[in-house]
């Protein structure tokens, strides 16, 4: 526009100049004047040409600006659309119920199957015998959980034993210590079937190798009662009050003790051999009736301080044992455990058994153990070794009813390398008289791992 005005102005100027010039007179125009006028016109023409070119460039720039403005408008519209869509998606997501994600553990059976257990390695020195390293036990426990209420559990003991004299090498013994299926029917009743750990006292069920503070079992537990039996059991527990107390029960039926050779002599008694399948392939109980048993227990947190508690239990089992079914085998156990805080424990069991026999008549056996332990961390000395040390003492005895009386005094320690790796040691002083008398003393050092 400016250019056009300039041009128009120029033209007007030229016209004005032309009109202002007088008509050609007869008089002559000088050559100098003509040339000057010619030069002026040329200069004006050049200026017009330059203004025309500038006008073209400005037109082009204007068009580019218009085009760019249009593009920006389009981009703005696009961005606004994207923002609107995003806002809609956010609103929709907030309104949608989230799908609960199942923990990946539950989606695979691998985490329903576990291996736990323990392993013990010992150095033993029994009086009158050479000291020895001893692979005491490798005892895996396999657990398989099917859903929330069904568990299959099985435990094994793997031990090494030299072959008979004049037979080189050794034998690996792999025994199934228990295998049972547990079905939690409701909050108060669980059915367990299989090769059961028997609730005669509590040691058999809770005395795995690394659990008890002393490396070997109480004399009476090993000698007088079976640790397991094939059968079925109902057990359960009922809370009492709101402080953690409860009462529990267990009722069971198992094949029961039997005769190793079919006869009713004392030496024939076999506490753990009646598993329902005979060596000749016949599926049968070795005697006509199974054995029945039960345990009743109470667990009482004591009101003095936290982790003060007392557990008491009474249990028993009875049934025939010889093939002829003429003799009963019966057992009764009293068990107790006391905790005074997290550092002190005292526990024990009294066991009595009674059975009839063809050769000796009525045999009564009894035994008991009392064990106390104290974790030195309770002294609050905060010393590095002391804090991880637990002292333990045990007295146990057994009267086998056949002339052998054994008393044993045990003093030992547990050093907690970790909460699952224990270094234990004890000295056992034994006083034993009779035909089955034990050696007078022994030292046991044990490294045990619970996993």
């Amino acid at each position: 526009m400016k250019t056009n005005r300039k041009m128009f102005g120029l033209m007007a100027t030229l016209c004005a100049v032309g009109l202002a010039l007088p008509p050609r007179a007869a008089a002559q125009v000088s050559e100098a004047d003509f040339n000057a006028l010619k030069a002026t016109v040329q200069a004006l023409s050049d200026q017009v040409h330059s203004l025309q070119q500038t006008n073209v460039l400005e037109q082009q720039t204007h068009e580019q600006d218009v085009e760019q403005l249009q593009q920006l408008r389009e981009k703005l519209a696009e961005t606004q659309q994207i923002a609107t869509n995003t806002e809609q998606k956010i609103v929709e997501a907030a309104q949608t119920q989230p799908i609960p994600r199942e923990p990946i553990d539950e989606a695979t059976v691998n985490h329903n199957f576990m291996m736990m257990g323990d392993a013990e390695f010992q150095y033993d020195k029994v009086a009158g015998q050479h000291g020895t390293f001893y692979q005491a036990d490798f005892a895996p426990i396999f657990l398989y959980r099917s859903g929330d209420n069904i568990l299959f559990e099985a435990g094994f003991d793997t031990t090494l034993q030299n072959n008979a004299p004049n037979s080189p090498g050794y034998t690996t013994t792999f025994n199934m210590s228990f295998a049972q299926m547990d079905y939690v029917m409701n909050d108060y009743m669980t059915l367990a079937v299989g090769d059961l750990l028997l609730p005669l006292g509590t040691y058999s069920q809770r005395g795995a190798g690394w659990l008890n503070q002393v490396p070997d079992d109480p004399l009476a537990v090993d000698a007088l009662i079976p640790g397991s039996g094939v059968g079925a059991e109902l057990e359960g527990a009922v809370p009492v009050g709101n402080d953690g107390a409860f009462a529990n029960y267990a009722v069971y039926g198992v094949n029961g003790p039997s005769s190793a050779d079919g006869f009713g002599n004392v030496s024939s008694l076999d506490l753990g051999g009646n598993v329902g399948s005979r060596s000749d392939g016949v599926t049968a109980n070795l005697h006509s009736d199974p054995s029945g048993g039960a345990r009743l227990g109470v667990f009482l947190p004591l009101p003095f301080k936290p982790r003060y508690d007392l557990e008491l239990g009474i249990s028993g089992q009875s049934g025939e044992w010889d093939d002829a079914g003429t003799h009963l085998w019966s057992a009764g156990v009293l068990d107790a455990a006391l905790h005074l805080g997290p550092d002190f424990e005292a526990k024990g069991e009294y066991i009595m058994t009674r059975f009839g026999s063809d050769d000796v008549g009525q045999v009564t056996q009894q035994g008991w153990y009392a064990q106390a332990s104290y974790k030195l961390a309770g002294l609050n000395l905060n010393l590095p070794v002391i804090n991880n040390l637990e002292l333990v003492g045990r007295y146990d005895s057994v009267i086998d009813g056949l002339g052998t009386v054994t008393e044993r005094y045990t003093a030992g320690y547990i050093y907690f390398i970790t909460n699952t790796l224990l270094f234990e040691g004890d000295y056992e002083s034994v006083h034993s008289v009779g035909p089955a008398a034990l050696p007078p003393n022994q030292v046991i050092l044990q490294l045990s791992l619970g996993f």
Partner: protein
Amino acid sequence: MNISKQKWVRAVFAAVIAAMVAGGMASTLCSADPTPGGSPAPTNSVPVQTNAVAATPVAARMQVTGAELYSINCNRCHPERYPTERTGAQWKTIMLHMQVRANIPVSQARLILQYLQDNSGR
């Protein structure tokens, strides 16, 4: 072993046991600190603080918690196992085993399991 030596051994043993019982009871009953001394510290796992039980006797409170049930029951038979040692699903399997083995109430086992799963961290 002759009779005098037997008596000597029995006397020494009885004295040791009596001293341990008396010392244990004295240090726990007479302790001014209501918080228990705690189990030995392991060196291969990170312990979860489970000994911080309130000084108020359990019977005075309305309902025992999963943490308290864990501290009451879960080191009676074996050294304390820490919640961080297992995943939540593994604890579910283990607690079924322990519930049967210790014959504890199902409702208490559920509370213990919830505590273990909440604190397993995985």
